[in-house]
């Protein structure tokens, strides 16, 4: 990507140079900021959430946020123009605003069985026969179980593939527009990790049984998917030309599993994937939802200097700096409740602390804890964005 415009008068690096320096655990000119904004944009722009599936509406809403509350260094894209695309991050039955929910509601999920026990064996066979595309085959097997209007077998391919292509091309076009404004993007493409996908698709009760009955089967199936994950992430990232991908870990925190399960069942396949991506020159942004405090030490097993650990406010981010700060960039974590209910001075105080303590020596990206709360106070969002200019310069 070619970004030449600087975002602030005191900046000496472009947004991409700044992000890459932070990820490389180097000291950039200042702390970068990258909020995950989606539904907040609709609220702020006076739209309903369902409107955001229209690319023109999304563009208007996110532009308004950027122009009035930004700038930010890296766009965190989360705009699925076809609701079914969201399945690739959240393989669960979902209710979308305007599709099962009121148009001003936010996306929510149902804990139902999408993946049946036999699918673990199916994965083994698929990975033997078609290692590179087994991921696509698995998700297109699941999608008709999630979306009843999509037929099974070849019908799911006919329905989904054009929509996937449409969304990818739109994203690429949008990214080029952002580059012209001096803004990079956090990642080229993202997927939910295999372990987490199984957890979501089995449903929490079934997956709890699976973890007790056959943890080795889960670990093996996740490991077998690595070829396909690496193939898809690497090639789609190249399509976007970023060099970073998101690996979403919604179900791996200690809110869901024990540190022992993490180390024995979830981590091996995650490590394989991160190593494969590193070998291809692609960095991994680990979207670590929930409380990861007891998993932090094990994260040191991941290769150094190629990962970003994104926390959402539930983990002790300051402890994370101590334990893994020399191995990976840390990203976060202005909490949702602070942005929704706090005052600008409270937000300023917390951002200042993050920048001073987490930003010390580099290796830190400021962001909202997971998605920016839809009901965040705009003045709080602006305070967060401004904090990197107010406190974030290293010299």
């Amino acid at each position, binding site marked *: 990507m070619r970004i030449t415009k600087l975002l602030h008068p005191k900046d000496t690096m472009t947004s991409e140079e700044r992000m890459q320096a932070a990820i490389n655990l180097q000291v950039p000119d200042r702390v970068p900021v990258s909020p995950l904004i989606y539904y907040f944009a609709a609220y702020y722009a006076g739209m309903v959430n369902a409107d955001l599936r229209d690319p023109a509406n999304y563009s208007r809403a996110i532009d308004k946020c950027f122009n009035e509350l930004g700038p930010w260094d890296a766009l965190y894209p989360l705009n699925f123009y076809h609701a079914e695309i969201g399945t690739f991050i959240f393989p669960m039955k979902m209710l979308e605003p305007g599709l099962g929910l009121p148009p001003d509601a*936010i996306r*929510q999920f*149902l804990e139902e069985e999408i993946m049946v026990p036999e699918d673990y064996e199916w994965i083994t066979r698929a990975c033997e026969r078609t290692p590179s595309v087994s991921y696509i085959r698995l998700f297109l097997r699941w999608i008709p179980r999630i979306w009843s209007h999509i037929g099974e077998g070849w019908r799911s391919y006919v329905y989904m593939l054009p929509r996937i292509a449409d969304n990818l091309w739109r994203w690429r076009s949008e990214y080029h527009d952002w580059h012209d404004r001096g803004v990079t993007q956090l990642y080229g493409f993202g997927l939910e990790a295999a372990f987490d996908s199984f957890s979501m698709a089995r449903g929490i009760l079934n997956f*709890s049984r699976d*973890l007790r009955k056959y943890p080795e089967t889960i670990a093996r199936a996740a490991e077998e998917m690595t070829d396909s994950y690496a193939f898809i992430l690497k090639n789609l990232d190249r399509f976007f030309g970023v060099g970073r991908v998101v690996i979403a870990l919604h179900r791996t925190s*200690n809110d869901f*599993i024990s540190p022992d399960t993490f180390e024995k069942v979830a981590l091996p396949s995650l490590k394989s994937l991160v190593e494969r991506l590193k070998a291809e020159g692609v960095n991994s942004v680990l979207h670590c939802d929930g409380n990861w405090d007891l998993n932090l030490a094990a994260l040191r097993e991941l290769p150094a200097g190629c990962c970003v650990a994104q926390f959402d406010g539930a983990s002790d981010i300051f402890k994370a700096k101590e334990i893994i700060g020399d191995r990976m960039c840390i990203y976060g974590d202005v909490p*949702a409740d602070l942005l929704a209910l706090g005052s600008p001075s409270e937000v300023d105080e917390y951002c200042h602390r993050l920048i001073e303590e987490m930003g010390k020596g580099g290796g830190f990206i400021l962001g909202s804890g997971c998605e920016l*709360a839809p009901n965040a106070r705009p003045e709080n969002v602006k305070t967060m964005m401004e904090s990197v200019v107010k406190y974030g310069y290293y010299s």
Partner: protein
Amino acid sequence: MSEKIAALIAAVEEDMTLEEVRKALGDGADPLSLVEALREGMAVVGDKYEAREYFLPDLILSAEIFKESIALIEPHLQSGNTTTKGAVVIGTVHGDIHDIGKNIVATMLKCNGYDVHDLGVDVPPQVFVEKASSTQAGLVAMSGLLTLAFDAMKDTVDALAEAGLRDKAKVIIGGGPVNEKVLEYCGADAFGKDPAEAVRLANRYLA
């Protein structure tokens, strides 16, 4: 036999617990003693969860075993021969359909002898009010994982106050983003970060 059932559910052994409950019922065991054994086992699960020896899968699975076991025992119970510590109304607030945490709390409260009225998810304030009124509940427990749930919690607390129930029922809240700040915002009495905390709060307010 009761000790074995308590140990099995405490070890989160689903098939073996259910088999033992069936066997005990077949042998004519006192159904109330079986319920008590299950409660004892669940108390161990709760302790281990608090000690971070057990995690969510253990909690969810043991709660399921408890429900399955109670379903086996219930036909053997004579109506009116169980005592409760009081009525609790629980639900996920309007606009939010998350139910994992709410379901666990509901089961843990049942395990601890409360008469739990689970209203499900996406529950409007008025439904909380009506159920709290009709059951004369001493505790209303609200769950929510979305930041948008903060307003729904506040609306529900306000609705309970308008209905004149706030001096009759304590209100507790829980869910991922819930903390002191949210508690202050919505005007509830207390919040719990996990199911064990919810049970402690119920014991404080009702037992």
